[in-house]
C-alpha cells in the first residue's frame, strides 16, 4: 500500500514537473494556457490522492478549488482575453528555448541538491514532493522572467503557485491548507482582474508590461 501511495504521488508530482517544462517549451499563448490547465488538473488529482493517502478529507476542497478555478475558470478567462487582444500569435521570449531549457534543468538539479540531504526523519513522500515542488516553483518563476507577455507571466505565477499548493498538501497534516489555497485562488483572481483593468483602460491597449514604463516619471529629467 505504502509503495503504491508513494508511486502514485511520485507519478503525479513528476507529471506536474514535466508539464512545467512543457510550459517553458511552448511558444504559443493558447498552447501555454492549455498546458497550464492540464497542470492544474494534475495538481487537483495529486491533492486528491494526498487526501486519500493522509486520509484528510478537507484536502478534497483544495482539490476542487484547484480544479474549478485553475483548471477551467481562469484558463477560459485568459483565452477570452487573448482572443480579444489578438495576441495568440507566438510570444517573444527573452531567452531562447534552448538556454531556457538548460536553465530549467539546472534549477531542477539545484532543488534536488537542496532537498535531497534533508529530511531523513521526514516521510519519504515529503522529500520527493518537496524536491518536485521546489523545482516547479523555481520553474514558474523562471517562466515569469523569460516571457515578455503579461498573460504568460500570469501563467508562470500560477504554475509557481501550483508548486506551492503541491508542497502544502504534501506536508503531512498541515493546518489551514484549505484556507491558504483559497487565499491563493483569490490572489490569482485579483491578478486576472488586474489584467482586465489594464485592458479596459484605453491607454493600456496592450498587456505588454514593458509598455508601461513610458509612464514612469524621472526618466527624462535625470539623465
Amino acid at each position: 500500500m505504502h509503495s503504491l501511495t508513494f508511486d502514485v504521488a511520485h507519478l503525479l508530482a513528476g507529471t506536474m514537473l514535466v508539464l512545467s517544462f512543457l510550459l517553458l517549451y511552448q511558444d504559443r499563448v493558447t498552447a501555454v494556457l492549455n498546458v497550464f490547465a492540464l497542470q492544474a488538473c494534475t495538481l487537483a488529482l495529486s491533492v486528491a490522492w494526498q487526501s486519500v493517502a493522509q486520509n484528510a478529507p478537507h484536502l478534497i476542497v483544495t482539490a476542487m478549488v484547484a480544479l474549478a478555478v485553475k483548471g477551467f475558470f481562469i484558463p477560459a478567462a485568459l483565452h477570452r482575453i487573448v482572443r480579444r487582444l489578438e495576441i495568440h500569435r507566438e510570444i517573444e521570449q527573452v531567452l531562447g528555448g534552448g538556454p531556457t531549457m538548460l536553465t530549467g534543468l539546472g534549477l531542477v538539479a539545484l532543488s534536488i541538491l537542496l532537498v535531497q540531504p534533508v529530511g531523513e526523519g521526514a516521510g519519504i513522500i515529503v522529500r520527493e514532493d518537496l524536491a518536485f515542488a521546489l523545482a516547479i516553483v523555481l520553474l514558474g518563476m523562471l517562466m515569469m522572467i523569460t516571457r515578455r507577455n503579461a498573460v504568460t507571466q500570469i501563467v508562470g505565477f500560477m504554475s509557481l503557485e501550483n508548486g506551492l499548493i503541491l508542497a502544502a498538501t504534501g506536508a503531512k497534516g498541515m493546518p489551514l491548507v484549505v484556507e491558504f489555497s483559497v487565499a491563493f485562488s483569490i490572489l490569482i483572481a485579483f491578478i486576472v482582474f488586474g489584467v482586465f483593468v489594464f485592458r479596459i483602460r484605453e491607454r493600456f491597449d496592450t498587456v505588454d508590461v514593458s509598455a508601461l514604463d513610458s509612464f514612469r516619471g524621472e526618466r527624462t529629467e535625470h539623465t
Partner: protein
Amino acid sequence: MAVVVGLCCVAAFFAVALLALVRGPFGTAFVYGACGAIALAGLAVGARALADGATSAITLPIGLALLGGHFRIDALSAFFLVVVNLGGAVTSLYALGYGRHEAAPLRVLPFYPAFLAAMNLVVMADDAFVFLLSWELMSLVSWAIVLAHHREPANLRAAYIYLVMASFGTLALLLCFGLLAGAEGGYAFDAMRAAHPAAFAVELAVILALIGAGSKAGVVPLHVWLPLAHPAAPSHVSALLSGVMTKVGIYGFVRIVFDLVGAPAPWNGLVVLVLGGVTATLGVLYALMQHDLKRLLAYHTVENIGIIFIGLGLALAFRSNGMALAAALALTAALFHVLNHSLFKSLLFFGAGAVLAATGERDMERLGGLIHRMPHTAVVFLIGCAAISALPPLNGFVSEWLTFQAILVSPLLPQWGLKLTVPAVGALLALSAALAAACFVKAFGVTFLGRPRTAAAARAGEVDRFSRAAMFVLAALCVLAGVLPGFVIDALAPVAQQFAGGVMPKQSIQPWLSIVPIGESRSSYNGLIIFAFMIASGTLTAFAVHRFATRATRRSAIWDCGFPLDAPQTQYTASSFAMPIRRVFGSVVFGVHERVDMPPPGATRAGHFAVRVIDPAWRWGYGPLARGVAAAALRLNQLQFLTIRRYLTLVFCALIILLIVVAAWR
C-alpha cells in the same frame, strides 16, 4: 558645584533660544543682552574652576538610555569655558549694535543662544554620547545661522559643504569613541580612561581624533568648509565660528588625545606636528590670495589652527618621551595661542563686520581710506592686525615665542625623525609668521589706508557704540595678554599639570614680571619692559625732535616721484600686493591662473588682468570625489527604470544565489 552652575547657564541659553521664537518683546536687544549676561556667568564659572583647580562632575538621568548623561568640569574644561564664554560675552555685546542690521532676525536669534549653549555643553560633556550630541548640535545650529542669508546661492553651497564636512568629522569621532569604548559600550569618559586599549588601537584613535576634531578646527586638507562657511554667516557669528568654535574643535582633540586614549606613540606627535606646520603655511598663503576681507580672515584661522597644532604635536612628542617640562611648555604655548586667537580673530571679524555695516562691502579692492572715516575701528583693527602678525609687545607674539622655545628644546628628543623634522616645522612657523605680517599689512593697508576706491567707501561712517565698545574691550585684552603674559601662563599651569605631567616655573614671581619658559639662563622675555622701553624711547624721540628741530609742516598734493595720478585706481590693490608672493609660491603650492590681456600700443580699449587661485584640496581631493559620487549615482539610477520582468529577474537571481549558498553550506 561648578558644573551645576554651568549646566544652569546652558539651560538659560536654551530658554532664551525658545523665547526668541516668540515675536514681540523678545527681540534683538533682549536676546543678545541675555546671552551676554549668561555668558558672563559662564565665564565666571570657568574662571573660578580654573582658579581653584577643583574638578566637579555630575550625572543626569538624560542622554543615552544605557548610561545617562555625564558632565564634568576639570582644568581643561574650565579653561575652554573661559575661552567660549569670553568670546560669547563680547560677541553678544557687539551684536547688540550689529544685530540691528539683520534683515530677518528670526533666522539668527533663536539659533545664536543655542549655538553658545552647544559649545558650552561640548566642553562640559563627560561621556561620548553627550559629547557627540552637543558637538553635532553645535554644527547644526551654526549651519542654520550660516543659512541666515539664504537667498545667495553661494551661501547655500557653503552651508551644504559645511554640514556634510561637520557630519563627516562627527562620524570619524564616533568611530574613535567606538574604538575607545569597546564592544561592550563603555561610553563614559571615565571608563575610557580606565580602559587600556592596544597600541594600534591607540594610534588609530589618535588618527581618527585628528580627522574628526581636525575637520572641525580646520586642519588642511579638511579645511575647505571653513573659508566658505565662516564668511557666509553674519559677522558677529563669523567671529564666534572662527574665534570660538574652532577652539572647541581643539578642545575635542586635546580631550581625546591627551586624556582618553592613554599613551600615544611619538610618531603620533610627529604626524600632528607636520600637519600643523603644513596647515599653518598653506592657510596663510591662501589667506594672502584672498581679497574678500572676511574670507581672508577665515583662511587665516586655518593658519592659527596650524600653529596651535604644532604646539600640540610637540607636547605629544615630548610627553611620549617623558619630557614633562617641555611637554608642559608646548601645551601651554598651544593653549595660550588658543586664547590669543580667540581674542584677536574675534576682534578682526568685528572690524570686518563694522566695515561691512558701514560700506556694505567685503571686497577690499572696493574699499580704502577708511582710517579717516572710521578712526576708532581703524585703531582697534590695527591692534588686531599687529597682534595676529605676532609682533611684540602684543599677545600673538608671546604664544608664538613660547612655541619657538618649545621647538628649541626638541633636539633632546631621542627619535631622529622628530629631531630632523622639528627644525623644519620651526622654519615653516617662522615663514607663516612673516607671511601673516605681509597678509595683514595688505588687509589693513588696502582696507583702511590709501584713498577710497568706491563711493561707498568714501561715504562710510563710524559704527555704533556697542560694536566699538566690544572691539575696544578685545583690543585692550590683546595688549594686556601681551604685556603681562605671566598670569595667563600661571592660570594654565593646572592644565599642564594634568595633561603634560609637569608645570613651567611659576611666572608671577619672576623679577620684573618677565616670563621664563625653562630657566632664565636659557631664555626669557619681558613684554612689560619692552613695552615701556618703546613708549619711553618713542616719547623721548618725539620730544627731542620737536624740541631741537622744527615742527613746521605743510600739506600738499601727493608727490609720487614726480608724476602723481590722482585716480584711486592707481593705488596698489590687494591682488597686486600679493603678486610677488604669488609668483614665488604660486607654482609650488596652488594652481594660479593669471590671464593678462594687454592691448597693443595705440589701442584705446582697456587692458584686463584676471587671476584665479585654486585650492588644491578642491582640485585633487573633493572635486574628483564629488564627481565620482555623481557618476555612481547616475549609473545606479538606471535601476529606477527597469521593467517589472527585470525586477523579477533581480529577485530571482538573488534567490538563486542564496539557494546556492545554502546548497554549498555544509
